[in-house]
């Protein structure tokens, strides 16, 4: 479970870096607990873009109502792992 979570976090970090064209950061150096809104400056449109890639890659749908609580890489990773394990 933990390995799965860490791998998921790394992959989500990669997606965010690529989609938002973030500079000077790698999946390995991206702080999994950094607040994506307050610190990285991500907005709801960015989250919608990221959600589409996650849907295609992980086969899960992120409800728009859930966007406000998806504030860090670790929380997004946990959300994906949980959704996949519950078969949603």
């Amino acid at each position: 479970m933990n390995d799965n979570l860490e791998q998921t976090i790394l992959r989500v970090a990669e997606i965010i870096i690529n989609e938002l064209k973030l500079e000077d950061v790698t999946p390995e150096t991206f702080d999994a607990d950094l607040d994506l809104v307050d610190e990285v400056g991500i907005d709801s449109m960015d989250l919608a873009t990221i959600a589409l890639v996650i849907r295609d890659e992980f086969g899960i749908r992120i409800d728009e109502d859930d966007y406000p609580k998806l504030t860090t890489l670790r929380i997004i990773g946990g959300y994906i792992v949980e959704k996949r394990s519950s078969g949603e």
Partner: protein
Amino acid sequence: MKTVSSLLDPHWHDRYKRISKLNIRSSIYDVTDRCNLRCKGCFFFSSNEHQAASEEKDLSKWHAFVESEMARGVNLAILIGGEPTLCPDRIESFYRRLPTFCATNGIIKVDRNRFPDLMVGISLWGAADDEIVLRGKDTFAISSANYAGDPNAYYLYTITPKQLGKIENNIRRIKDVGLKVHMQLLSNDEGVDGFFWQPSELVAVRAEMDQMLDSYPHTVISSKYYHRIITTGAMCGRAFGWMECPSVTDALDTRQPRPKRLTNFIRWASDLKTMHRCCTSETRDCTTCKDGAAHMSWVMVNKRDHMNSSEDLQNWIEVYEMFAKLYRFIPW
């Protein structure tokens, strides 16, 4: 990676945190096709938007419509017209449920017993002589008597080229009746004789707007970055236009690639079915559009483009704060 806290000192970071999670989702509603004025340069009539649809008269449909808008995620209703105050029952269908802003010419006073904290934006087109030319009467004499000292009302002052050098007189008389003011510019293609911005005039009006903000900081709700954006039409090295505008109706937005835009934004006609293309006239030349809300939103939706330097991010914060104040999400 540049982070917000690496760019901002604690004071600015606190200001950022106050707005960063507001997640404002606005849409615009034509409340009626009718108005009690016919102003030269009003896009609603000059581009025949009042004939785009026949207004819905069944009040129960307005209530159901607002419920459906809330289900769509709208959390700010911006009511325009025609003249919304001609239809207070329709205003109430929004006001009961949502943060609501009502644009008005101020001729009819909103009943404060019925709408105690409805945010009201009163249009003003200049001094008495300008108002008489453009609107047929000096509306300020009436609107200022209706709203003097009202803490939930402010003037939306549309500046025209003929008011260069005279802006302060208008700011001062607004201050004198205890109201606040937000400045915007008349767009060139409204086709009013003699009211066409030349480049040198835009430079001059920017300087005058900046001076007003410095001289009347408790009266003028604005920011110098907004003045720069609206007078130059440029932001982060890009020019405002159709492929940049954030306030295009979502269902009609076929642009590829889609620019950063307001989430789920729609401008509805008063039949509650027809959608207008954008927040202003469909006939307007987007490259010279001066719509204030569109330019504010242009800044707001491009936050990460303002994370290159402390100054850029502070500019973004000031514009966001201005918008949030104008629509009551944070106090003056």
